[in-house]
């Protein structure tokens, strides 16, 4: 299918594809096995300018938007969903600054993120605050020219590896969700430490750690937007980033499908390649159709975001929901086509199935996405 990409977007896609095939694919199994953070690949992506595709030119990027980010994320994900998320999580950490940061904050942080000199991360989730983000307990107390942060963030992608963290904390307990605020915290700030690296089922190349704040003092200039804007910042950030998760899901599914097609042509049973059997053919046809439908939805949503359309929550949730459910199904079917070999770690597809699962869980579980979609549907119907 031709998605009528701009010349610049084609360059981004081709460059990301080249990096995925030549550099990521050969090391994907190693990083999955060891959990070693893929700094070598991060350096290559940095030198290729791809960390800046969603950042304005005046801050050192190439001036594209979410669509450009989606194209790169999808290509990286075809080779490794774990390495791709290290890239995409930096965008997630940068979006609060892009969307709500002051000119000073943008000038200070975005150029290094665009160059890939510094990775970023976003910290919202806590042990007691997952889907119920309003239950966060991390506090930020104003004290003169500073805020003092206390609390623990959990399962933060790029935690410990990133230099720049955007973190949501409660500044006024009495105001409920309107009492949360977003802050920029730099690695190395006294009182800011990391918990142990989590041992995960999939996306094992990525680092997931706790962020621990113990009387962590940050300058008041690090507040993003205003006090009380924390949840708006978080929700608008997710609206921007969910197409990226959709793209990760499309990439993982496409990668698994590509392996399945290649294997089906090579694997001989009953003296014929299994690709000649209609049962396998129908599976491949369905997988491809589902991937393409998800891709179309993800791209359409990314373009809506870039066009500056205001109400994107429903589209954004739908893209994430559909693409991630599709990804789980397609990667499971890819393992099925590989049969017993697919269950073995010597073959690449079981990793795709493990990497797929997280896309249904993070950046809002798919149940939360359905909630967002439904509440928007009801809201929209009231306006009619």
């Amino acid at each position, binding site marked *: 299918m031709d998605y009528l990409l701009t010349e610049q977007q084609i*360059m981004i896609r081709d*460059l990301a594809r080249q*990096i995925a095939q*030549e550099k990521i694919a050969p090391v994907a199994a190693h990083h999955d096995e060891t959990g070693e953070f893929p700094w070598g690949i991060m350096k290559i992506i940095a030198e*290729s*300018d791809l960390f800046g*595709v969603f950042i304005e030119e005046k801050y050192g990027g*190439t001036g594209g938007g979410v669509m450009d980010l989606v194209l790169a994320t999808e290509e990286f994900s075809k080779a490794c969903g774990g390495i791709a998320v290290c890239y995409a999580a930096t965008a997630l950490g940068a979006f609060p600054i892009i969307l709500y940061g002051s000119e000073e904050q943008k000038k200070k942080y975005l150029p290094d993120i665009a160059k890939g000199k510094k990775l970023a991360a976003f910290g919202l989730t806590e042990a007691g605050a997952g889907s119920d983000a309003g239950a966060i307990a991390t506090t930020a107390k104003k004290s003169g020219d500073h805020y003092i942060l206390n609390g623990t963030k959990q399962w933060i992608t790029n935690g410990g590896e990133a230099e720049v963290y955007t973190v949501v904390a409660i500044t006024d307990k009495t105001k409920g969700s309107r009492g949360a605020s977003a802050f920029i915290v730099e690695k190395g700030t006294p009182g800011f430490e990391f918990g142990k690296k989590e041992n995960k089922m999939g996306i094992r190349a990525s680092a997931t750690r706790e962020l621990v704040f113990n009387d962590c003092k940050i300058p008041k200039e690090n507040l993003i937007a205003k006090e009380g804007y924390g949840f708006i910042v978080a929700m608008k950030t997710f609206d921007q980033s969910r197409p990226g998760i959709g793209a990760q899901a499309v990439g993982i599914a496409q990668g698994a499908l590509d392996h399945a097609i290649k294997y089906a042509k090579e694997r001989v049973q009953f003296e014929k390649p299994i690709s000649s059997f209609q049962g396998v053919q129908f599976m491949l046809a369905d997988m491809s159709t589902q991937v393409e439908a998800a891709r179309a939805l993800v791209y359409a949503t990314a373009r809506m975001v870039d066009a500056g359309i205001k109400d994107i929550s429903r589209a954004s949730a739908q893209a994430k929901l559909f693409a991630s459910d599709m990804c789980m199904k397609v990667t499971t079917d890819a393992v099925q086509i590989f049969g017993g070999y697919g269950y073995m770690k010597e073959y690449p597809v079981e990793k795709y199935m493990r990497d797929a699962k997280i896309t249904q869980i993070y950046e809002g579980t798919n149940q939360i996405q359905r909630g967002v979609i439904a509440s928007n549907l009801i809201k929209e119907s009231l306006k009619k």
Partner: protein
Amino acid sequence: MNIVVCIKQVPDTTNVRIDPNTNTLIREGVESVINPFDMYAIEEAVRTKEKTGGKVIVISMGPPQVETALREALSLGCDEAILLSDRAFAGSDTWATSYTLAMAIKKIKDFNVIFCGKQASDGDTAQVGPGISAHLDIPQVTYVKKIEKIDEKSAIVYRMTEEGYDVIETPLPVVLTVVKEINTPRIPSLKGKMTAKKAQILAWKAQDLNVNDKFIGLNGSPTQVVKIFTPSPRSGGEIFQGETDEVVVKLIDRIKDELKPKF
């Protein structure tokens, strides 16, 4: 320092298919790429520039579509590109090609080092680099796997040999042809690609170079291709099986037997 790198566009042979009837390469639908060995030459030229300053000028001779190869070289860090394209150059063998490239390099005048890949993946002759040095009457070092030191006057390089390597000091200007052991070519940058897309590429024709018409193109090419054929495969040898001691004795007897004059 002014660095020249000569590249060739070749068919991408990584996914090559052979016509079973004619035993020749199926060229339809085969993409053109920069000769893989030239990618190392480009990388080494750019790395040298990054160390010593100056600029890298990339040159290629071929049909107009070679422009895409030159743009790719620009995206990888070369600063200027020159395309030598003229019907008069068509049919050049390695002698005429190296002569034409040498005349273009003469026109550039100010150059310190010329990089080439050790050979092209289509012709596999490894003659063009040495040919350029002969036409320019400057030194050459082939099969370079490492540059130890380079400045405007001289260079110390490692030449790979079958047994190991030679360490050679050479005055500049010099032609260096490189092997794949020398570096790992970089991935282009997005900004590099965007700049390369808009970059001006100089196009030189025969009349722009001070060439002797007798030495260019088909007329200037002494090579005669008599026949192209696939060598017949070697017939399978003999395999001796059993205990090592016995097998060695059998083998030696067999060799002696083979060496006996046959009448």
